[in-house]
């Protein structure tokens, strides 16, 4: 059967067909839908882990236990799970083990543009890179075969355009998912120096064998069109090149981007007047070619930044300009993402802005608190850094500064890696105030459950981590729950807690407005008695804008959350049902 499938759904299908039994992941665009799609296959145990390190370790354990296992993450998630990854390269696997990592060229939804191929090289774990959904499925299955044949975990590298594009996939049956035997084997699985020294020898030997495999691998293909131009490429960049150059070039398409088939590359390159390496982000393939003494054209013709397009490649390689582009020249206002109407975070940031506090931010929907008009976040680095960076700032600048500074962190992010920072504050006598933005869901990545929501990935009820008792348990004595839509009450709480000479936590509790369980109704209107003070405009609500010189609420955008009624000092905004 043929089906139009998202790349991520095809990876999930590949895992299913390959007989995978255990998948543990932490969400992250553009990788999230792999694990979400796994859920439809009842044969597979699936879970959202608290963070990527835990997810990878669960998958590693499942593999050692004899099952085929998978863990999926975005590129920065690979940083979080890097520790186990480097060592599982040494232990190898029992059941096949695949880590799917999705890069985000162009930073559609990310805080950096790192190239995960460096990890393959650094950890000596082979990496396959599909170009479309059919290959997503095929390469996933192949990865499991290789993983078991070479006793080696595998990377599957995706990117936004591969993960989030749909193309046609042919569905096949699931192979048996028999568990392999579990045998105690400390020399292989207990990585202390004596054992690891021997496994390192194995790793190098395995890499050599994998490289031999790469020379003849069916996923490293050559396409000859009798051209004088040779193109070496992989993944989505290969499709851009193919579309741009068609049969005006010959291609070496690398389905395996680590280790590389050196002999094949040398032989291919020798045949052409000019050899282009076309790869987004870092010159990984290019540098390898150069190290082999091959003269290639790479980043001198192509950018290190963002996504490529066929047009860009046609221009660089053929000097062709492409079709006419109509530009009218008028400046067009940008449309950055905004907090939704009814977003609970809006109340929090309105108050923080009003109080003029320094705010160490984190990653989630609430990062949008950095943009105008709320403009109240000073820093955003990575998940969890809001808590620990505020501690560092306070230690650098003293207690008075700490009293003017807060951390803001979402519920999912707090569990992911905020709790450890909080322990640091308590243990090392910090006096910081941490605001946990508890909207009862992992919002940014599209509503995944997490340990604080009380539901599993399959929507089954489970134990719920109680944030209040958790914070108290690590030694925070002042933990307050407050509603960010009660602006006056919330402001009072923030003032009180920041003034303390001890650590404190404010749990700003109000569910995400997009959750089905949240039912706001009606809409708000601004009365004719409006004094035009424009205070309501400071909320940055997408439903409120200026019309004929005065604030106006667009009913089609308003969901009746009512936050603005509490902002108007003259009581001119009313809620109607």
């Amino acid at each position: 059967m043929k089906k139009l499938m998202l790349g991520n759904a095809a990876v999930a299908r590949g895992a299913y067909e390959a007989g995978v039994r255990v998948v543990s992941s932490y969400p992250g665009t553009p990788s999230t839908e792999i694990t979400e799609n796994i859920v439809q296959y009842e044969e597979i145990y699936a879970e959202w882990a608290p963070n990527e390190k835990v997810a990878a370790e669960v998958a590693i354990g499942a593999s050692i236990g004899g099952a085929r296992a998978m863990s999926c993450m975005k590129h920065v998630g690979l940083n979080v799970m890097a520790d186990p990854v480097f060592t599982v390269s040494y232990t190898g696997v029992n059941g096949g083990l695949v880590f799917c990592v999705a890069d985000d060229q162009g930073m559609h939804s990310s805080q950096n543009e790192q190239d995960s191929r460096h990890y393959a090289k650094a950890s000596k774990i082979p990496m396959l890179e599909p170009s479309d959904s059919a290959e997503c499925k095929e390469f996933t299955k192949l990865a499991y075969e290789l993983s078991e044949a070479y006793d080696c975990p595998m990377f599957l590298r995706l990117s936004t355009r591969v993960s989030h594009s749909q193309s046609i996939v042919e569905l096949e049956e699931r192979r048996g998912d028999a568990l392999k035997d579990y045998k105690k084997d400390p020399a292989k699985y207990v990585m202390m120096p004596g054992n690891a020294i021997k496994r390192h020898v194995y790793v190098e030997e395995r890499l050599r064998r994998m490289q031999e495999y790469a020379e003849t691998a069916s996923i490293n293909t050559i396409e000859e069109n009798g051209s004088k131009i040779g193109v070496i490429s992989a993944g989505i960049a290969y499709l851009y090149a193919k579309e741009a150059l068609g049969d005006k070039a010959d291609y070496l398409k690398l389905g395996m981007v680590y280790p590389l088939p050196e002999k094949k590359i040398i032989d291919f390159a020798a045949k052409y007047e000019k050899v282009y390496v076309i790869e987004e982000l870092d010159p990984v393939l290019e540098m390898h070619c150069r190290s082999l003494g091959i003269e290639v054209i790479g980043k001198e013709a192509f950018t290190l930044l963002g996504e490529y397009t066929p047009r860009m490649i046609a221009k660089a390689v053929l000097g062709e300009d492409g079709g006419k582009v109509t530009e009218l020249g008028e400046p067009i206002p940008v449309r950055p993402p905004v907090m939704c109407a009814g977003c609970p975070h809006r109340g929090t940031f309105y108050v923080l802005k009003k109080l003029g506090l320094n705010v160490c931010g984190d990653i989630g929907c609430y990062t949008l608190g950095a943009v105008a008009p709320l403009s109240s976040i000073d820093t955003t680095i990575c998940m969890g850094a809001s808590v620990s960076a505020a501690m560092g700032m306070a230690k650098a600048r003293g207690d008075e500064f700490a009293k003017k500074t807060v951390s803001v962190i979402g519920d999912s992010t707090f569990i992911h890696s905020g709790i450890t920072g909080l322990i640091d504050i308590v243990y090392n006598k910090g006096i910081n105030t941490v605001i946990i933005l508890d909207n009862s869901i992992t919002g940014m990545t599209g509503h995944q459950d997490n340990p604080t929501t009380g539901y599993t990935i399959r929507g089954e009820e489970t134990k719920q981590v109680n944030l209040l008792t958790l914070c108290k348990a690590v030694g925070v004595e002042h933990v307050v729950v407050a509603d960010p839509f009660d602006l006056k009450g919330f402001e009072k709480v923030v003032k009180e807690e920041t003034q303390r000479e001890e650590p404190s936590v404010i749990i700003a509790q109000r569910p995400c407005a997009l959750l089905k369980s949240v039912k706001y109704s009606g809409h708000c209107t601004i009365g004719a008695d409006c004094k035009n003070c424009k205070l309501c405009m400071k909320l940055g609500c997408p439903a409120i804008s200026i019309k004929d010189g005065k604030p106006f609420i667009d009913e089609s955008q308003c969901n009746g959350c009512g936050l603005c009624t509490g902002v108007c000092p003259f009581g001119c905004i009313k809620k109607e049902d």
Partner: protein
Amino acid sequence: MTKNIMIVGVGGQGTLLASRILGNAVIGAGLDVKVSEVHGMSQRGGSVVTYVKYGEKVQSPIVDKGCADIILAFEQLEAYRALPYLKEDGRMIVNNQKINPMPVITGAAEYPEGICEKLAEACDLTVVDAAALAAEAGSIKAVNVVLIGVMATSTDIPYEDWIATIRSTVPPKFVEMNVKAFDLGYHLKG
């Protein structure tokens, strides 16, 4: 030749569903197809762009500047922003809705005046009051299906394939309403 379609709008407007209906209608017609979607950050009220490409064999999933045969815009400003992507002889279909982006709301920028007039001079333009037609069909939520209906007339996909796709994509109780919405778009004069 591949046909390149670009669907643009504001996160939350239902552009993703529109591109999925389109993708499935094409597969029903037995062609190769690729659909590039947007998930994540930009879905939060930002500009969203999806691409649908179909033909004998489709390579990349994206549409370049100057290469779109059809641009289906759910919002005026997004249509304006997408104009450079339209082929010289391409067709632009615009829903007449306007949604202010945050820089306009905060007063840092102005929403350009007379977008439809300017577009009409620059390209082959069809302006649709999709909200009114959707309401006529029975639900304001069917704006995306109305727009798909308008666009369908510029493709070589048979009418029946569209209807079959709608039947298989939307929940049973909304089928009739959505078919009506599609028809209103499909038979739009203009």
